[in-house]
Protein backbone atom coordinates (compact mmCIF):
# COMPACT_ATOMS: atom_id res chain seq x y z
CA UNK A 1 0.00 0.00 0.00
CA UNK A 2 2.83 2.31 0.89
CA UNK A 3 4.55 1.74 -2.39
CA UNK A 4 1.38 2.46 -4.35
CA UNK A 5 1.08 5.85 -2.66
CA UNK A 6 4.74 6.46 -3.40
CA UNK A 7 4.17 5.55 -7.06
CA UNK A 8 1.12 7.80 -7.33
CA UNK A 9 3.07 10.61 -5.74
CA UNK A 10 5.95 10.17 -8.17
CA UNK A 11 3.61 10.27 -11.16
CA UNK A 12 1.70 13.26 -9.80
CA UNK A 13 4.92 15.16 -9.19
CA UNK A 14 6.13 14.50 -12.72
CA UNK A 15 2.84 15.56 -14.29
CA UNK A 16 2.64 18.75 -12.27
CA UNK A 17 6.21 19.50 -13.29
CA UNK A 18 5.22 18.95 -16.91
CA UNK A 19 2.47 21.60 -16.65
CA UNK A 20 4.79 24.18 -15.24
CA UNK A 21 7.72 23.47 -17.56
CA UNK A 22 5.51 24.32 -20.54
CA UNK A 23 3.44 27.44 -21.19
CA UNK A 24 0.16 25.53 -20.63
CA UNK A 25 0.06 26.26 -16.91
CA UNK A 26 0.67 29.98 -17.21
CA UNK A 27 -1.61 30.51 -20.18
CA UNK A 28 -4.35 28.57 -18.47
CA UNK A 29 -4.10 30.38 -15.16
CA UNK A 30 -3.99 33.82 -16.74
CA UNK A 31 -6.96 33.16 -19.01
CA UNK A 32 -8.96 31.57 -16.22
CA UNK A 33 -8.37 34.52 -13.90
CA UNK A 34 -9.13 37.06 -16.63
CA UNK A 35 -12.38 35.31 -17.47
CA UNK A 36 -13.35 35.07 -13.82
CA UNK A 37 -12.67 38.76 -13.27
CA UNK A 38 -14.42 39.89 -16.41
CA UNK A 39 -17.55 37.83 -15.89
CA UNK A 40 -17.83 38.56 -12.18
CA UNK A 41 -17.48 42.31 -12.38
CA UNK A 42 -18.85 43.18 -15.81
CA UNK A 43 -21.21 40.48 -17.01
CA UNK A 44 -22.26 39.18 -13.58
CA UNK A 45 -22.83 42.68 -12.26
CA UNK A 46 -21.12 42.11 -8.92
CA UNK A 47 -21.34 45.76 -7.87
CA UNK A 48 -24.83 46.43 -9.22
CA UNK A 49 -26.25 43.63 -7.11
CA UNK A 50 -25.16 45.38 -3.91
CA UNK A 51 -25.10 42.10 -1.99
CA UNK A 52 -22.18 40.45 -0.22
CA UNK A 53 -22.22 37.06 -1.91
CA UNK A 54 -20.34 35.34 -4.72
CA UNK A 55 -22.99 32.78 -5.71
CA UNK A 56 -24.50 34.42 -8.74
CA UNK A 57 -21.87 36.79 -10.06
CA UNK A 58 -18.87 34.47 -9.61
CA UNK A 59 -19.65 30.75 -9.28
CA UNK A 60 -22.57 30.86 -11.72
CA UNK A 61 -20.10 31.01 -14.61
CA UNK A 62 -17.82 28.19 -13.56
CA UNK A 63 -19.64 25.36 -15.36
CA UNK A 64 -19.22 27.36 -18.58
CA UNK A 65 -15.58 28.30 -18.06
CA UNK A 66 -14.72 24.71 -17.29
CA UNK A 67 -16.47 23.56 -20.42
CA UNK A 68 -13.53 24.86 -22.48
CA UNK A 69 -10.72 25.18 -20.00
CA UNK A 70 -10.77 21.77 -18.33
CA UNK A 71 -10.62 19.75 -21.57
CA UNK A 72 -7.65 21.94 -22.52
CA UNK A 73 -5.88 20.82 -19.36
CA UNK A 74 -6.89 17.19 -19.66
CA UNK A 75 -6.45 16.62 -23.40
CA UNK A 76 -2.75 15.89 -23.25
CA UNK A 77 -2.87 13.44 -20.33
CA UNK A 78 -2.92 10.22 -22.37
CA UNK A 79 -3.00 11.41 -25.97
CA UNK A 80 0.48 12.85 -25.66
CA UNK A 81 1.85 9.70 -24.00
CA UNK A 82 0.47 7.63 -26.83
CA UNK A 83 1.75 9.94 -29.55
CA UNK A 84 5.30 10.19 -28.20
CA UNK A 85 5.40 6.51 -27.21
CA UNK A 86 6.16 7.12 -23.55
CA UNK A 87 3.02 5.14 -22.72
CA UNK A 88 5.04 2.03 -23.45
CA UNK A 89 7.69 3.21 -21.03
CA UNK A 90 5.22 4.16 -18.32
CA UNK A 91 3.20 0.96 -18.45
CA UNK A 92 6.26 -1.31 -18.40
CA UNK A 93 7.49 0.32 -15.21
CA UNK A 94 6.72 -1.64 -12.04
CA UNK A 95 3.51 0.29 -11.37
CA UNK A 96 -0.10 -0.65 -12.03
CA UNK A 97 -2.15 1.13 -14.66
CA UNK A 98 -4.38 2.38 -11.83
CA UNK A 99 -1.52 4.12 -10.10
CA UNK A 100 -0.62 5.86 -13.35
CA UNK A 101 -4.24 6.86 -14.01
CA UNK A 102 -4.83 8.19 -10.51
CA UNK A 103 -1.45 9.91 -10.39
CA UNK A 104 -2.06 11.72 -13.64
CA UNK A 105 -5.60 12.67 -12.73
CA UNK A 106 -4.54 14.00 -9.33
CA UNK A 107 -1.84 16.16 -10.89
CA UNK A 108 -4.30 17.85 -13.23
CA UNK A 109 -6.91 18.16 -10.52
CA UNK A 110 -4.45 19.77 -8.13
CA UNK A 111 -3.45 22.11 -10.90
CA UNK A 112 -7.08 23.12 -11.45
CA UNK A 113 -7.40 23.56 -7.69
CA UNK A 114 -4.43 25.90 -7.72
CA UNK A 115 -5.96 27.98 -10.50
CA UNK A 116 -9.18 28.13 -8.50
CA UNK A 117 -7.36 29.19 -5.33
CA UNK A 118 -5.76 32.04 -7.23
CA UNK A 119 -9.18 33.64 -7.55
CA UNK A 120 -8.87 34.56 -3.85
CA UNK A 121 -8.84 38.34 -4.55
CA UNK A 122 -12.55 38.02 -5.33
CA UNK A 123 -13.12 36.64 -1.84
CA UNK A 124 -11.03 39.41 -0.32
CA UNK A 125 -12.98 42.00 -2.26
CA UNK A 126 -16.36 40.77 -1.14
CA UNK A 127 -15.12 40.57 2.45
CA UNK A 128 -13.78 44.10 2.26
CA UNK A 129 -17.03 45.47 0.92
CA UNK A 130 -19.45 43.62 3.18
CA UNK A 131 -20.02 40.65 5.40
CA UNK A 132 -20.59 37.59 3.23
CA UNK A 133 -21.19 34.11 4.61
CA UNK A 134 -17.72 32.65 4.16
CA UNK A 135 -19.03 29.16 4.85
CA UNK A 136 -21.17 29.41 1.73
CA UNK A 137 -18.21 30.65 -0.28
CA UNK A 138 -16.07 27.78 0.98
CA UNK A 139 -18.70 25.20 0.09
CA UNK A 140 -19.09 26.73 -3.35
CA UNK A 141 -15.33 26.53 -3.86
CA UNK A 142 -15.38 22.85 -2.91
CA UNK A 143 -18.27 22.30 -5.30
CA UNK A 144 -16.51 24.11 -8.08
CA UNK A 145 -13.39 22.03 -7.59
CA UNK A 146 -15.41 18.79 -7.54
CA UNK A 147 -17.14 19.83 -10.74
CA UNK A 148 -13.79 20.58 -12.35
CA UNK A 149 -12.70 17.08 -11.31
CA UNK A 150 -15.74 15.54 -12.98
CA UNK A 151 -15.02 17.40 -16.23
CA UNK A 152 -11.39 16.42 -15.97
CA UNK A 153 -12.24 12.74 -15.54
CA UNK A 154 -14.31 12.95 -18.75
CA UNK A 155 -11.28 14.50 -20.48
CA UNK A 156 -9.20 11.56 -19.23
CA UNK A 157 -11.49 9.19 -21.12
CA UNK A 158 -11.40 11.14 -24.36
CA UNK A 159 -7.66 11.62 -24.05
CA UNK A 160 -7.12 7.88 -23.67
CA UNK A 161 -9.26 7.30 -26.76
CA UNK A 162 -6.99 9.04 -29.23
CA UNK A 163 -3.47 10.08 -30.11
CA UNK A 164 -4.67 13.49 -31.18
CA UNK A 165 -5.08 16.16 -28.54
CA UNK A 166 -7.44 18.11 -30.79
CA UNK A 167 -9.83 15.18 -31.15
CA UNK A 168 -9.65 14.61 -27.41
CA UNK A 169 -10.46 18.27 -26.75
CA UNK A 170 -13.45 18.39 -29.06
CA UNK A 171 -14.91 15.11 -27.80
CA UNK A 172 -14.63 16.11 -24.21
CA UNK A 173 -16.16 19.57 -24.83
CA UNK A 174 -19.14 17.89 -26.48
CA UNK A 175 -19.61 15.42 -23.63
CA UNK A 176 -19.26 18.12 -20.99
CA UNK A 177 -21.73 20.27 -22.87
CA UNK A 178 -24.26 17.46 -22.57
CA UNK A 179 -23.57 17.26 -18.86
CA UNK A 180 -24.34 20.94 -18.55
CA UNK A 181 -27.33 21.08 -20.87
CA UNK A 182 -29.07 18.19 -19.16
CA UNK A 183 -29.62 20.54 -16.24
CA UNK A 184 -29.78 23.89 -18.03
CA UNK A 185 -33.19 25.54 -17.32
CA UNK A 186 -34.16 26.30 -20.96
CA UNK A 187 -33.42 22.69 -21.92
CA UNK A 188 -35.35 21.35 -18.92
CA UNK A 189 -38.36 23.47 -19.86
CA UNK A 190 -38.19 22.13 -23.37
CA UNK A 191 -37.97 18.55 -22.13
CA UNK A 192 -40.89 19.02 -19.77
CA UNK A 193 -43.13 19.82 -22.71
CA UNK A 194 -42.10 16.61 -24.44
CA UNK A 195 -41.74 13.97 -21.76
CA UNK A 196 -43.15 13.11 -18.35
CA UNK A 197 -41.62 14.47 -15.17
CA UNK A 198 -39.95 11.24 -14.10
CA UNK A 199 -37.91 11.11 -17.25
CA UNK A 200 -36.98 14.76 -16.95
CA UNK A 201 -35.93 14.16 -13.37
CA UNK A 202 -33.78 11.28 -14.43
CA UNK A 203 -32.06 13.35 -17.11
CA UNK A 204 -31.44 16.31 -14.84
CA UNK A 205 -29.90 14.05 -12.22
CA UNK A 206 -27.06 13.43 -14.65
CA UNK A 207 -26.25 17.08 -15.02
CA UNK A 208 -23.38 18.79 -13.28
CA UNK A 209 -25.58 21.91 -13.11
CA UNK A 210 -28.18 20.26 -10.90
CA UNK A 211 -25.56 19.10 -8.44
CA UNK A 212 -23.47 22.23 -8.51
CA UNK A 213 -26.42 24.50 -7.76
CA UNK A 214 -26.85 23.17 -4.22
CA UNK A 215 -23.17 23.46 -3.40
CA UNK A 216 -23.09 26.91 -4.97
CA UNK A 217 -25.75 28.04 -2.49
CA UNK A 218 -23.75 26.63 0.39
CA UNK A 219 -25.71 23.42 0.90
CA UNK A 220 -23.16 20.65 1.38
CA UNK A 221 -25.39 17.75 0.37
CA UNK A 222 -23.68 14.36 0.45
CA UNK A 223 -25.66 13.30 -2.63
CA UNK A 224 -24.10 16.08 -4.69
CA UNK A 225 -20.61 15.32 -3.44
CA UNK A 226 -21.21 11.65 -4.10
CA UNK A 227 -22.39 12.43 -7.63
CA UNK A 228 -19.17 14.18 -8.53
CA UNK A 229 -16.97 11.60 -6.81
CA UNK A 230 -18.74 8.68 -8.45
CA UNK A 231 -18.49 10.40 -11.81
CA UNK A 232 -14.76 10.76 -11.30
CA UNK A 233 -14.47 7.13 -10.21
CA UNK A 234 -16.50 5.83 -13.11
CA UNK A 235 -14.61 7.90 -15.68
CA UNK A 236 -11.23 6.81 -14.37
CA UNK A 237 -12.40 3.20 -14.47
CA UNK A 238 -13.49 3.68 -18.09
CA UNK A 239 -10.07 5.16 -18.82
CA UNK A 240 -8.41 2.05 -17.45
CA UNK A 241 -10.61 -0.16 -19.59
CA UNK A 242 -9.77 1.85 -22.70
CA UNK A 243 -6.06 1.71 -22.00
CA UNK A 244 -6.28 -2.04 -21.53
CA UNK A 245 -8.28 -2.51 -24.72
CA UNK A 246 -5.67 -0.68 -26.77
CA UNK A 247 -3.04 -3.08 -25.64
CA UNK A 248 -5.12 -6.20 -26.03
CA UNK A 249 -5.12 -5.51 -29.79
Amino acid at each position, binding site marked *: MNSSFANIKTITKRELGAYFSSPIAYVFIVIFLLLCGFFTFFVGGFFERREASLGLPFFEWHPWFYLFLVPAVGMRLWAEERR*VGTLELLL*TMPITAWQAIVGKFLASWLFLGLALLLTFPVVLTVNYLGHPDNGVIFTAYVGSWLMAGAYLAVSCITSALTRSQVVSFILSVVICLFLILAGFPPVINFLQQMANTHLVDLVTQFSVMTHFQGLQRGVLDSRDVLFFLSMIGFSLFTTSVILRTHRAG
Partner: protein
Amino acid sequence: MIKVQNLAKVFGTKRAVDDISFTVERGEVLGFLGPNGAGKSTTMRMITGFLPPSAGKIAVGGYDIVDASIQARRLIGYLPENAPAYTDMTVHGFLTFCAEIRGLSGDARKRAVDKVVETCFLGAVLHQSVETLSKGYRHRTCFAQSIIHDPDVLVLDEPTDGLDPNQKHEVRQLIRRMGQTKAIIFSTHILEEVDAVCSRAIIIDRGRIVANGTPQELRQKSEWAGAVTIRVSGIDAATLSGKLSHLPTVKRTTILKEEATQVTARVFPKTNGNGTLASSVADLAKGWVVEELHTEEGRLDEVFHTITMPDTVREETK
Protein backbone atom coordinates in the same frame (compact mmCIF):
# COMPACT_ATOMS: atom_id res chain seq x y z
CA MET B 1 15.81 -15.86 -16.60
CA ILE B 2 13.43 -15.41 -19.51
CA LYS B 3 11.24 -18.28 -20.50
CA VAL B 4 8.84 -17.94 -23.43
CA GLN B 5 6.46 -20.79 -24.18
CA ASN B 6 4.21 -21.08 -27.22
CA LEU B 7 3.74 -17.34 -27.32
CA ALA B 8 1.20 -15.95 -29.77
CA LYS B 9 -0.30 -12.54 -30.46
CA VAL B 10 -3.23 -11.92 -32.73
CA PHE B 11 -4.21 -8.45 -33.96
CA GLY B 12 -7.62 -8.78 -35.56
CA THR B 13 -7.09 -11.45 -38.17
CA LYS B 14 -3.31 -11.06 -38.33
CA ARG B 15 -1.13 -13.44 -36.36
CA ALA B 16 1.75 -11.12 -35.52
CA VAL B 17 3.48 -13.70 -33.35
CA ASP B 18 2.76 -17.34 -33.92
CA ASP B 19 3.83 -20.00 -31.43
CA ILE B 20 7.26 -18.81 -30.37
CA SER B 21 9.24 -20.57 -27.63
CA PHE B 22 12.74 -19.87 -26.37
CA THR B 23 14.68 -19.27 -23.17
CA VAL B 24 17.45 -16.87 -22.25
CA GLU B 25 19.69 -17.56 -19.29
CA ARG B 26 21.83 -15.20 -17.26
CA GLY B 27 25.08 -14.53 -19.11
CA GLU B 28 23.47 -14.86 -22.52
CA VAL B 29 22.97 -12.16 -25.13
CA LEU B 30 20.23 -13.15 -27.51
CA GLY B 31 20.06 -11.37 -30.85
CA PHE B 32 16.62 -11.03 -32.36
CA LEU B 33 16.72 -10.81 -36.13
CA GLY B 34 14.06 -10.55 -38.74
CA PRO B 35 12.65 -8.36 -41.47
CA ASN B 36 10.46 -5.39 -40.58
CA GLY B 37 7.07 -6.51 -39.34
CA ALA B 38 8.29 -10.00 -38.48
CA GLY B 39 7.01 -9.72 -34.92
CA LYS B 40 10.20 -8.75 -33.10
CA SER B 41 8.82 -5.66 -31.38
CA THR B 42 5.52 -7.37 -30.60
CA THR B 43 7.36 -10.22 -28.89
CA MET B 44 9.46 -7.78 -26.88
CA ARG B 45 6.38 -5.81 -25.89
CA MET B 46 4.82 -8.98 -24.57
CA ILE B 47 7.95 -9.96 -22.64
CA THR B 48 8.03 -6.54 -20.96
CA GLY B 49 4.35 -6.75 -20.06
CA PHE B 50 3.15 -3.93 -22.30
CA LEU B 51 1.00 -6.17 -24.51
CA PRO B 52 -0.87 -9.11 -23.03
CA PRO B 53 -0.20 -12.34 -24.98
CA SER B 54 -3.09 -13.88 -26.92
CA ALA B 55 -1.78 -17.32 -25.97
CA GLY B 56 1.23 -18.85 -24.33
CA LYS B 57 3.25 -18.04 -21.24
CA ILE B 58 6.15 -15.76 -20.38
CA ALA B 59 8.08 -16.02 -17.14
CA VAL B 60 10.79 -13.55 -16.16
CA GLY B 61 12.95 -14.64 -13.24
CA GLY B 62 10.26 -17.16 -12.35
CA TYR B 63 7.45 -14.56 -12.28
CA ASP B 64 4.65 -14.81 -14.80
CA ILE B 65 4.38 -11.55 -16.73
CA VAL B 66 0.58 -11.59 -16.54
CA ASP B 67 -0.10 -13.02 -13.08
CA ALA B 68 2.85 -11.50 -11.20
CA SER B 69 3.37 -8.59 -13.53
CA ILE B 70 4.80 -6.08 -11.07
CA GLN B 71 7.41 -8.48 -9.65
CA ALA B 72 8.43 -9.54 -13.16
CA ARG B 73 8.62 -5.94 -14.39
CA ARG B 74 10.90 -4.99 -11.50
CA LEU B 75 13.54 -7.31 -12.96
CA ILE B 76 13.33 -5.89 -16.46
CA GLY B 77 14.97 -2.89 -18.06
CA TYR B 78 13.33 -1.95 -21.34
CA LEU B 79 14.38 0.24 -24.22
CA PRO B 80 11.34 0.55 -26.52
CA GLU B 81 11.65 1.09 -30.24
CA ASN B 82 12.38 4.72 -31.16
CA ALA B 83 13.55 5.40 -27.60
CA PRO B 84 10.65 7.48 -26.26
CA ALA B 85 11.26 9.91 -23.40
CA TYR B 86 9.26 12.72 -21.81
CA THR B 87 10.12 15.67 -24.00
CA ASP B 88 9.14 18.28 -21.43
CA MET B 89 11.74 17.11 -18.89
CA THR B 90 15.48 17.60 -18.62
CA VAL B 91 17.69 14.56 -18.97
CA HIS B 92 18.44 14.71 -15.26
CA GLY B 93 14.78 15.13 -14.35
CA PHE B 94 13.76 12.24 -16.57
CA LEU B 95 16.37 9.87 -15.16
CA THR B 96 15.53 10.87 -11.60
CA PHE B 97 11.86 10.21 -12.30
CA CYS B 98 12.64 6.77 -13.74
CA ALA B 99 14.86 5.92 -10.77
CA GLU B 100 12.17 7.06 -8.36
CA ILE B 101 9.46 5.01 -9.97
CA ARG B 102 11.82 2.04 -9.85
CA GLY B 103 11.74 2.46 -6.08
CA LEU B 104 15.12 4.14 -5.62
CA SER B 105 15.29 7.05 -3.22
CA GLY B 106 17.71 9.37 -1.49
CA ASP B 107 21.39 8.60 -1.93
CA ALA B 108 20.81 5.37 -3.83
CA ARG B 109 18.82 7.27 -6.44
CA LYS B 110 21.46 9.94 -6.81
CA ARG B 111 24.18 7.32 -7.20
CA ALA B 112 22.13 5.38 -9.77
CA VAL B 113 21.54 8.52 -11.85
CA ASP B 114 25.19 9.56 -11.64
CA LYS B 115 26.29 6.10 -12.69
CA VAL B 116 24.13 5.84 -15.82
CA VAL B 117 24.99 9.40 -16.79
CA GLU B 118 28.62 8.34 -16.76
CA THR B 119 28.02 4.99 -18.50
CA CYS B 120 25.95 6.56 -21.28
CA PHE B 121 28.06 9.75 -21.64
CA LEU B 122 25.19 12.11 -20.88
CA GLY B 123 27.15 14.57 -18.75
CA ALA B 124 27.18 17.25 -21.44
CA VAL B 125 23.39 17.38 -21.84
CA LEU B 126 22.35 16.66 -18.26
CA HIS B 127 20.34 19.84 -17.79
CA GLN B 128 19.09 20.12 -21.34
CA SER B 129 15.45 19.42 -22.15
CA VAL B 130 14.87 16.07 -23.86
CA GLU B 131 13.03 17.89 -26.64
CA THR B 132 16.20 19.66 -27.77
CA LEU B 133 18.43 16.56 -27.81
CA SER B 134 19.90 15.06 -30.98
CA LYS B 135 18.70 11.59 -31.84
CA GLY B 136 21.84 9.94 -30.50
CA TYR B 137 21.56 11.65 -27.16
CA ARG B 138 17.86 10.95 -26.86
CA HIS B 139 18.52 7.33 -27.62
CA ARG B 140 21.20 7.12 -24.96
CA THR B 141 18.93 8.87 -22.46
CA CYS B 142 16.31 6.20 -22.94
CA PHE B 143 18.98 3.52 -22.82
CA ALA B 144 20.22 4.99 -19.53
CA GLN B 145 16.70 4.73 -18.19
CA SER B 146 16.64 1.00 -18.96
CA ILE B 147 19.76 0.20 -16.93
CA ILE B 148 19.21 2.66 -14.08
CA HIS B 149 18.04 0.00 -11.61
CA ASP B 150 20.73 -2.50 -12.65
CA PRO B 151 18.13 -5.03 -13.87
CA ASP B 152 18.75 -8.75 -14.25
CA VAL B 153 16.96 -8.77 -17.58
CA LEU B 154 17.41 -6.27 -20.39
CA VAL B 155 15.10 -6.02 -23.36
CA LEU B 156 16.44 -3.66 -26.00
CA ASP B 157 14.51 -2.91 -29.15
CA GLU B 158 17.05 -1.76 -31.75
CA PRO B 159 19.48 -0.24 -29.25
CA THR B 160 21.91 1.02 -31.89
CA ASP B 161 19.35 2.53 -34.24
CA GLY B 162 20.17 6.11 -35.14
CA LEU B 163 23.59 6.16 -33.51
CA ASP B 164 26.81 7.12 -35.28
CA PRO B 165 29.46 4.40 -35.77
CA ASN B 166 31.39 5.36 -32.64
CA GLN B 167 28.28 5.36 -30.49
CA LYS B 168 27.21 2.04 -32.01
CA HIS B 169 30.55 0.62 -31.01
CA GLU B 170 30.17 1.95 -27.46
CA VAL B 171 26.68 0.54 -27.07
CA ARG B 172 27.77 -2.87 -28.39
CA GLN B 173 30.63 -2.97 -25.93
CA LEU B 174 28.27 -2.02 -23.17
CA ILE B 175 25.79 -4.75 -24.11
CA ARG B 176 28.54 -7.33 -24.30
CA ARG B 177 29.93 -6.29 -20.94
CA MET B 178 26.52 -6.34 -19.27
CA GLY B 179 25.71 -9.63 -20.97
CA GLN B 180 28.18 -11.39 -18.69
CA THR B 181 25.93 -10.94 -15.66
CA LYS B 182 22.48 -10.35 -17.14
CA ALA B 183 20.07 -11.97 -19.53
CA ILE B 184 19.76 -9.71 -22.55
CA ILE B 185 17.50 -9.76 -25.58
CA PHE B 186 18.07 -7.22 -28.29
CA SER B 187 16.70 -6.80 -31.76
CA THR B 188 18.64 -5.45 -34.69
CA HIS B 189 18.77 -5.17 -38.45
CA ILE B 190 22.54 -5.03 -38.50
CA LEU B 191 24.01 -8.47 -38.97
CA GLU B 192 27.56 -7.60 -38.01
CA GLU B 193 26.16 -6.68 -34.62
CA VAL B 194 25.08 -10.26 -34.12
CA ASP B 195 28.67 -11.39 -34.54
CA ALA B 196 30.01 -8.63 -32.36
CA VAL B 197 27.63 -9.02 -29.44
CA CYS B 198 25.41 -12.10 -29.38
CA SER B 199 26.05 -15.44 -27.84
CA ARG B 200 22.96 -16.72 -29.64
CA ALA B 201 20.66 -15.46 -32.35
CA ILE B 202 17.08 -16.12 -33.32
CA ILE B 203 15.74 -15.23 -36.72
CA ILE B 204 12.00 -14.73 -36.87
CA ASP B 205 9.92 -14.26 -39.96
CA ARG B 206 6.18 -13.70 -40.15
CA GLY B 207 5.77 -14.42 -36.46
CA ARG B 208 7.68 -17.70 -36.43
CA ILE B 209 11.18 -18.69 -35.39
CA VAL B 210 12.96 -19.83 -38.53
CA ALA B 211 16.46 -20.23 -37.10
CA ASN B 212 17.92 -20.42 -33.62
CA GLY B 213 21.60 -20.95 -32.79
CA THR B 214 24.98 -19.37 -32.19
CA PRO B 215 26.15 -17.00 -34.91
CA GLN B 216 28.63 -19.74 -35.86
CA GLU B 217 25.88 -22.31 -36.28
CA LEU B 218 23.76 -19.93 -38.30
CA ARG B 219 26.62 -19.22 -40.63
CA GLN B 220 26.97 -22.95 -41.25
CA LYS B 221 23.56 -22.85 -42.88
CA SER B 222 24.95 -20.60 -45.56
CA GLU B 223 25.73 -21.96 -49.00
CA TRP B 224 29.03 -20.18 -48.61
CA ALA B 225 30.10 -22.09 -45.55
CA GLY B 226 33.12 -24.19 -46.53
CA ALA B 227 33.38 -22.81 -50.06
CA VAL B 228 36.94 -22.49 -51.30
CA THR B 229 38.37 -19.58 -53.24
CA ILE B 230 41.45 -20.13 -55.33
CA ARG B 231 43.57 -17.73 -57.41
CA VAL B 232 45.96 -19.30 -59.90
CA SER B 233 48.45 -17.94 -62.45
CA GLY B 234 49.20 -19.38 -65.89
CA ILE B 235 46.05 -21.35 -66.53
CA ASP B 236 42.92 -20.35 -68.42
CA ALA B 237 39.47 -20.12 -66.90
CA ALA B 238 37.85 -22.99 -68.80
CA THR B 239 40.56 -25.49 -67.88
CA LEU B 240 40.52 -24.45 -64.24
CA SER B 241 36.78 -24.64 -63.91
CA GLY B 242 36.70 -28.00 -65.71
CA LYS B 243 39.31 -29.53 -63.45
CA LEU B 244 37.72 -28.21 -60.27
CA SER B 245 34.29 -29.45 -61.28
CA HIS B 246 35.64 -32.97 -61.59
CA LEU B 247 36.44 -33.17 -57.88
CA PRO B 248 33.93 -35.54 -56.28
CA THR B 249 33.00 -33.25 -53.38
CA VAL B 250 32.32 -30.19 -55.51
CA LYS B 251 28.78 -29.05 -56.14
CA ARG B 252 29.53 -26.23 -58.53
CA THR B 253 32.27 -23.88 -59.60
CA THR B 254 32.10 -20.23 -60.47
CA ILE B 255 34.77 -18.07 -62.05
CA LEU B 256 34.94 -14.85 -60.07
CA LYS B 257 37.57 -12.94 -62.02
CA GLU B 258 39.53 -13.55 -65.19
CA GLU B 259 42.63 -11.47 -65.85
CA ALA B 260 45.45 -11.74 -68.36
CA THR B 261 47.60 -13.94 -66.17
CA GLN B 262 45.40 -14.90 -63.28
CA VAL B 263 42.07 -16.60 -62.71
CA THR B 264 40.06 -16.52 -59.50
CA ALA B 265 37.48 -19.25 -58.95
CA ARG B 266 35.21 -20.34 -56.15
CA VAL B 267 34.04 -23.90 -55.58
CA PHE B 268 31.07 -24.83 -53.42
CA PRO B 269 31.08 -28.13 -51.51
CA LYS B 270 28.27 -30.69 -51.78
CA THR B 271 27.88 -30.94 -48.03
CA ASN B 272 28.15 -27.76 -46.03
CA GLY B 273 31.15 -26.93 -43.95
CA ASN B 274 33.02 -30.23 -43.53
CA GLY B 275 36.26 -28.40 -44.29
CA THR B 276 37.87 -31.08 -46.47
CA LEU B 277 37.33 -29.27 -49.72
CA ALA B 278 40.35 -27.02 -49.30
CA SER B 279 42.76 -29.96 -49.02
CA SER B 280 41.36 -31.70 -52.06
CA VAL B 281 41.62 -28.50 -54.05
CA ALA B 282 45.18 -28.11 -52.79
CA ASP B 283 45.96 -31.67 -53.92
CA LEU B 284 44.59 -30.91 -57.34
CA ALA B 285 46.56 -27.69 -57.52
CA LYS B 286 49.97 -29.34 -57.16
CA GLY B 287 52.17 -27.98 -59.87
CA TRP B 288 50.04 -24.88 -60.48
CA VAL B 289 51.15 -21.43 -59.46
CA VAL B 290 48.70 -20.82 -56.59
CA GLU B 291 48.54 -17.18 -55.52
CA GLU B 292 45.74 -17.60 -52.99
CA LEU B 293 43.72 -20.40 -51.46
CA HIS B 294 41.28 -20.06 -48.63
CA THR B 295 38.06 -21.47 -47.15
CA GLU B 296 35.12 -19.09 -46.84
CA GLU B 297 33.13 -18.78 -43.66
CA GLY B 298 29.40 -18.70 -44.03
CA ARG B 299 27.82 -15.32 -44.42
CA LEU B 300 25.01 -14.28 -42.07
CA ASP B 301 23.43 -11.87 -44.50
CA GLU B 302 23.11 -14.65 -47.02
CA VAL B 303 21.53 -16.96 -44.42
CA PHE B 304 19.20 -14.18 -43.38
CA HIS B 305 18.31 -13.50 -46.98
CA THR B 306 17.53 -17.12 -47.90
CA ILE B 307 15.40 -17.92 -44.87
CA THR B 308 13.41 -14.74 -44.66
CA MET B 309 12.81 -14.25 -48.35
CA PRO B 310 9.11 -14.00 -49.21
CA ASP B 311 7.79 -17.10 -50.98
CA THR B 312 7.03 -15.22 -54.15
CA VAL B 313 10.62 -14.08 -54.54
CA ARG B 314 11.84 -17.55 -53.70
CA GLU B 315 9.73 -19.02 -56.50
CA GLU B 316 11.03 -16.52 -59.01
CA THR B 317 14.67 -17.18 -58.26
CA LYS B 318 14.31 -20.92 -58.63
